[in-house]
C-alpha cells in the first residue's frame, strides 16, 4: 500500500470529463471530423436462412452521390485468419461478403457507400436482393441442444430422494439487447497499408487484432482510437461485422468511411443476452438447510459459434450444500451470436436461484433473509478456498435496517394501498472479482503536470476520473495537474473493459506506475546534494500538492518543478504494470450485494411499478464514491428493465426480430424509476489486487430482477417464473 496520504481517492469528486460531456464536446465514434469522409449504409438480409440468388445494384448506383455497392458479388477475398484472442468464441465467425449464404435475418448482404448520408441511406433502399429462402430455426423450445458443460459434487440424485423438502421449478428469461445509447459505429481510413479506425469499442486491442487478422495485415498497421464510448454493457467486447465492413468500404473506395448502425441493425448486428431456460431442483431439511440442488440450463447460440458465459458459478458457491449437479447446454439457432451483457451469466443464475430461495422460504414459512443466513457457507465449497472477503451477512443486516424489512408483513398479498397490492422482496447478488494484465505509462513534466496513459476504455463508469484520482494521490498532485488518457491502441495495453475488472487491472497498473515515478523523484532528491531533502531516508518522504517533503517535517522539502529544473530534467517517466497472479488462486474472490425493493401491482390491471429500491454492496474499496453511486443506481435501472420490460421478440416464421426499435423494445424511462439508494460497505480487499477493489459494474445489476420478482410474489401471491414479468402474466 502506498505511504502517500489519501486525498482524491475516496472523495466524492465530479467527473473529470464532465465538462466535455455536458457541452457536447466528447467525441464518439462518428463524431470525429475526418477530412473527405463518405458514408456507408449496410443492406440487411430480409430472409432468416438460405442463399442470395441475385443482387441488383443498378438503381442504387444510378442514384446521385452513390459511389459503390459492395457485396459478395464484387468483394475481394479477405484472409480471415484465425483470431488468436481467447475472447473469440469457439466456432467460425461470420465472414462478410465472402459467399452467398445467409445465416440469420438481418445479416449484412451489401454495403452502399455514398458522398452523403442521405444518398447512402436512399441507395441502400434501392439495392434489390433476391433469395432462395429456407425456413430458419429460431425457437429454442423446438431445437436440439449441444453437448453439456457439467459440474457435480456429491450425489445429488440420492440427496434429493431423501430430502425432507423437495422443489422443482423452471425459470425462463427472455433475450435482452444491450441497447447502449450510442449505436455501434466505425470510422475507417486507410493511409497506404495503414488502417486507422475510430470505433465504438470496449477494447481497442480487440478491434485492432480482429481487423489485422481479417485483412491479413500486421497488428501494428492498425490503429484503433476510442476516447469515448456511449455505453456498452458488453456489446463492445468484440468487433462485429460492421467494423470489417467499414474498413473494407474505405479500402474499396479509397476514401475514409463513416458507418453507423441504425438502432434496428443493433438487434442483429451486435450481440445480446441470450434466451435462457433454467430448471432447478432443490432439496432441504425442514429447517431450510439446503442439501442438494440441480441446475439444468439451456441458452441460445448461433449456428456458427458457441457462446458460453459463467452461468454455473453462482450455483456452485453462493450457498452451502454438499450436493450440486449442473448441466449447461447451448442450442444452435439461425440467429447471430450472443455476447456478454451486464452481469453476464450471474444475473441469469441469480434470478433462478434467488427466486427458488424465495419459493423455499415461502414453503417453509421462513423469512427470506433468515433462510439465506442458514445457508451461508464458511468457505467456497466449489474450490475449498477461503473467501478473501465475503460480507453478505452484513449486507443483509444493513439492508434490512435501512429498508425497514422488519416492518414487512410476511404473508403474500397482505398489504394494499387503494387499487395497488404492495409487496417487498429481496435477493442476494454475487459476481466474481477477476483482473487481467494491464500497463500504464506515467510522465511527469517539468511544469509539475503529469500524463498517465493506458489503452483502457470508459463506457460510463468513470475510468477517466477514478484513475486520475489514484494517480493524483500516488504522485502527490492535485487532480487538476493530472491528465489520464485512454482509448488508443498506441497506448500501453489494457484488458477488455468488461467483467468489472478495469479498476482492479488498469487501476493497479496506474498505482504501480505512479508509485515508481514518485520514488524516482524522491531518489533524485535525496541523492541531490543541492536538495533540501539530501540524505533523508527516502521512505520518510511523501509528496503533497506537488511538493516533496519529510513526512513529519513538512518544512523540509521542495517541489517537483524545483527538483526537475535544478537537475535539468524535462520530465520523469515510468511504466506501471499489473500482472494477474499466476498459479492457483489462494482465495475465493467475489463481490457481493443484497437488493431490497418494494413494488406496487395494480390488483385489476396487473401493472407493476417499482416504488423504492436499496442495494447494499460488499465491493471492496471504493475509489470514486460519487461515480460508484451512479453506477449502482444504473445497475438497478438495468435490473428493472430486465425484470419488467426487456424482451427481444423474434417472429419464428421468418426469423425477423419484430421489436427492433426503442418504441417496442421497452427500456426503463425516467417515469419508471423511483428514488433509488445504494450503500457500499466500508472496506477493502487486498487479496484481490493491490488497490483493494472488487469491481462494481456487474454486481450492481445482479440480484435486482429476482428481488423484484420476489416482491411481485409478495404483493400478489402469484409466482411468475419468467422474465420480463408482464401485465399479461399477472392478469
Amino acid at each position: 500500500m502506498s505511504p502517500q496520504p489519501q486525498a482524491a481517492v475516496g472523495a466524492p469528486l465530479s467527473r473529470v470529463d464532465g465538462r466535455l460531456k455536458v457541452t457536447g464536446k466528447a467525441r464518439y465514434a462518428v463524431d470525429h471530423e475526418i477530412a473527405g469522409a463518405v458514408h456507408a449504409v449496410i443492406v440487411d438480409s430480409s430472409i432468416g436462412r438460405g442463399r442470395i440468388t441475385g443482387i441488383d445494384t443498378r438503381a442504387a448506383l444510378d442514384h446521385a452521390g452513390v459511389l459503390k455497392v459492395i457485396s459478395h458479388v464484387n468483394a475481394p477475398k479477405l484472409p480471415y485468419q484465425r483470431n488468436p484472442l481467447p475472447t473469440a468464441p469457439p466456432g467460425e465467425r461470420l465472414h462478410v461478403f465472402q459467399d452467398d449464404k445467409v445465416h440469420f435475418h438481418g445479416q449484412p448482404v451489401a454495403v452502399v457507400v455514398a458522398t452523403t448520408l442521405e444518398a447512402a441511406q436512399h441507395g441502400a433502399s434501392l439495392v434489390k436482393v433476391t433469395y432462395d429462402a429456407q425456413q430458419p430455426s429460431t425457437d429454442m423450445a423446438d431445437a436440439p441442444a449441444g453437448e453439456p458443460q457439467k459440474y457435480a459434487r456429491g450425489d445429488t440424485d440420492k440427496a434429493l430422494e431423501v430430502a425432507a423438502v423437495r422443489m422443482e421449478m423452471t425459470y425462463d428469461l427472455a433475450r435482452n439487447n444491450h441497447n447502449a445509447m450510442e449505436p455501434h459505429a466505425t470510422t475507417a481510413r486507410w493511409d497506404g497499408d495503414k488502417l486507422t479506425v475510430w470505433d465504438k469499442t470496449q477494447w481497442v486491442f480487440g478491434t485492432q487484432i480482429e481487423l489485422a487478422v481479417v485483412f491479413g495485415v500486421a497488428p501494428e498497421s492498425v490503429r484503433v482510437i476510442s476516447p469515448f464510448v456511449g455505453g456498452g454493457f458488453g456489446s463492445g467486447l468484440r468487433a462485429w461485422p460492421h467494423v470489417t465492413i467499414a474498413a473494407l468500404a474505405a479500402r474499396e473506395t479509397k476514401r475514409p468511411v463513416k458507418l453507423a448502425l441504425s438502432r434496428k441493425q443493433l438487434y442483429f448486428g451486435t450481440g445480446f443476452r441470450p434466451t435462457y431456460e433454467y430448471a432447478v431442483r432443490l432439496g432441504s431439511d425442514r429447517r431450510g438447510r439446503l442439501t442438494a440442488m440441480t441446475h439444468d440450463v439451456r441458452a441460445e447460440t448461433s449456428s456458427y459459434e458457441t457462446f458460453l458465459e459463467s452461468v454455473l458459478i453462482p450455483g456452485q458457491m453462493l450457498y452451502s450444500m454438499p450436493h450440486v449437479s449442473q448441466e449447461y447446454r447451448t442450442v444452435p439457432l439461425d440467429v447471430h451470436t450472443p455476447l456478454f451483457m451486464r452481469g453476464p451469466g450471474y444475473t441469469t443464475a441469480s434470478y433462478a436461484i434467488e427466486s427458488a430461495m424465495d419459493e423455499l422460504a415461502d414453503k417453509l414459512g421462513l423469512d427470506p433473509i433468515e433462510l439465506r443466513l442458514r445457508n451461508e457457507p464458511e468457505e467456497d465449497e466449489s474450490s475449498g478456498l477461503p473467501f478473501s472477503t465475503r460480507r453478505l451477512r452484513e449486507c443483509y443486516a444493513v439492508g434490512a435496517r435501512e429498508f425497514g424489512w422488519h416492518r414487512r408483513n410476511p404473508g403474500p398479498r397482505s398489504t394494499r394501498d387503494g387499487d395497488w397490492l404492495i409487496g417487498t422482496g429481496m435477493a442476494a447478488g454475487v459476481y466474481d472479482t477477476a483482473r487481467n494484465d494491464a500497463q500504464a505509462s506515467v510522465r511527469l513534466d517539468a511544469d509539475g503536470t503529469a500524463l498517465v496513459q493506458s489503452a483502457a476504455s470508459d463506457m460510463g463508469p468513470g475510468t477517466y476520473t477514478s484513475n486520475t484520482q489514484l494517480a493524483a494521490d500516488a504522485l502527490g498532485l492535485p487532480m487538476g495537474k493530472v491528465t489520464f488518457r485512454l482509448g488508443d491502441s498506441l497506448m500501453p495495453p489494457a484488458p477488455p473493459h468488461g467483467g468489472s475488472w478495469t479498476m482492479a487491472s488498469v487501476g493497479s497498473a496506474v498505482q504501480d506506475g505512479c508509485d515508481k515515478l514518485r520514488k524516482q523523484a524522491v531518489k533524485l532528491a535525496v541523492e541531490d546534494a543541492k536538495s533540501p531533502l539530501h540524505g533523508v531516508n527516502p521512505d520518510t518522504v511523501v509528496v503533497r500538492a506537488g511538493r516533496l517533503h519529510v513526512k513529519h517535517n513538512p518544512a523540509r522539502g521542495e517541489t517537483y518543478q524545483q527538483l526537475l529544473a535544478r537537475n535539468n530534467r524535462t520530465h520523469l517517466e515510468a511504466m506501471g504494470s499489473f500482472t494477474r497472479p499466476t498459479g492457483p488462486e489462494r482465495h475465493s474472490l467475489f463481490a457481493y450485494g443484497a437488493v431490497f425493493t418494494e413494488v406496487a401491482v395494480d390488483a385489476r390491471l396487473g401493472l407493476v411499478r417499482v416504488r423504492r429500491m436499496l442495494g447494499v454492496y460488499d465491493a471492496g474499496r471504493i475509489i470514486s464514491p460519487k461515480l460508484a453511486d451512479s453506477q449502482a443506481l444504473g445497475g438497478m435501472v438495468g435490473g428493472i428493465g430486465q425484470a419488467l420490460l426487456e424482451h427481444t421478440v423474434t417472429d419464428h416464421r421468418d426469423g425477423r426480430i419484430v421489436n427492433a426499435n426503442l418504441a417496442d423494445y421497452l427500456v426503463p424511462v425516467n417515469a419508471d424509476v423511483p428514488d433509488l439508494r445504494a450503500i457500499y460497505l466500508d472496506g477493502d480487499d487486498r487479496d484481490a489486487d493491490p488497490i483493494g477493489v472488487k469491481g462494481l459494474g456487474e454486481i450492481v445489476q445482479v440480484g435486482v430482477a429476482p428481488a423484484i420478482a420476489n416482491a411481485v410474489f409478495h404483493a400478489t401471491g402469484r409466482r411468475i417464473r419468467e422474465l420480463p414479468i408482464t401485465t399479461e402474466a399477472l392478469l
Partner: protein
Amino acid sequence: MSTELPESYGPPPEGQPSPPSRRTFIATTTAVGGAVVAGGGLAAGAFPFTAEEADAVEAAPSGRVSLTVNGERHTAEIDNRTSLLDLLREQFGLPGTKKGCNAGACGACTVLVDGRRVNSCLTLAVRLDGAEVTSIEGLADGDELHPLQRAFVEQDAFQCGFCTPGQIMSGVGCIEEGHTGSHEEIREWMSGNICRCGCYVKIVRAVEQTARGK
C-alpha cells in the same frame, strides 16, 4: 431492397396481419420515422415514394434555407431528405447532438427550435426557414456553463454521456415549460429522453436544482 416473403412460408396464422406490401411499409416507416436502412432518407419523412418513384429519383431535390443556429446565421442549400439532426452533425460541424435511434423514440437528438424542445431526427431541415435553433454547443455562455450543465456535473447526472446533450436540452425545455413542480412531474416530462446508463434519479435532481435556482 428485398424480395417479398417467399411463398413457401405459407400464409400467416389466423388472426395475424398480412405481411406489409412495399407501399404500406414505406408509408408506415414514414409515419413513425423508423427503419433507417429500409426507409433510408424517407425515414426523415420526405415523401411517401413508391418503389418505382423512388427508383426514378435522379438527383435529390433540395431547398434553400436560412436559419440561425446557436446565434449564428446560416444559409444553405439542403437536400430535402436531410433532418435537422444530420444538418447539424454532418454539415454544420456540430456533432454534440446525438443520433440514438433516428426515430423519435430516445430523445438523444433533442434541440430547441424557437425555444421549444424537438427531436431533431424527426425534423426536416428544409422546413426550418427563419427558425432559431439552439443545440448543446450553444447553451454555455462562453466558458460559463448553463446552470443545468453545471447541475448535471455536480449531481453526476450522466455516465457514458451520449444521451446527455439531449437530456440537458430537454431539461432546459422542461424548466422553461414549468413542468418541475415535483419529482413525479419532472420524471413524467423528462421521459422522452432515455438514459441507458440509468441516471434518472440524478437527472431529476439536476433539473430540480436548476429549476429551484431560477
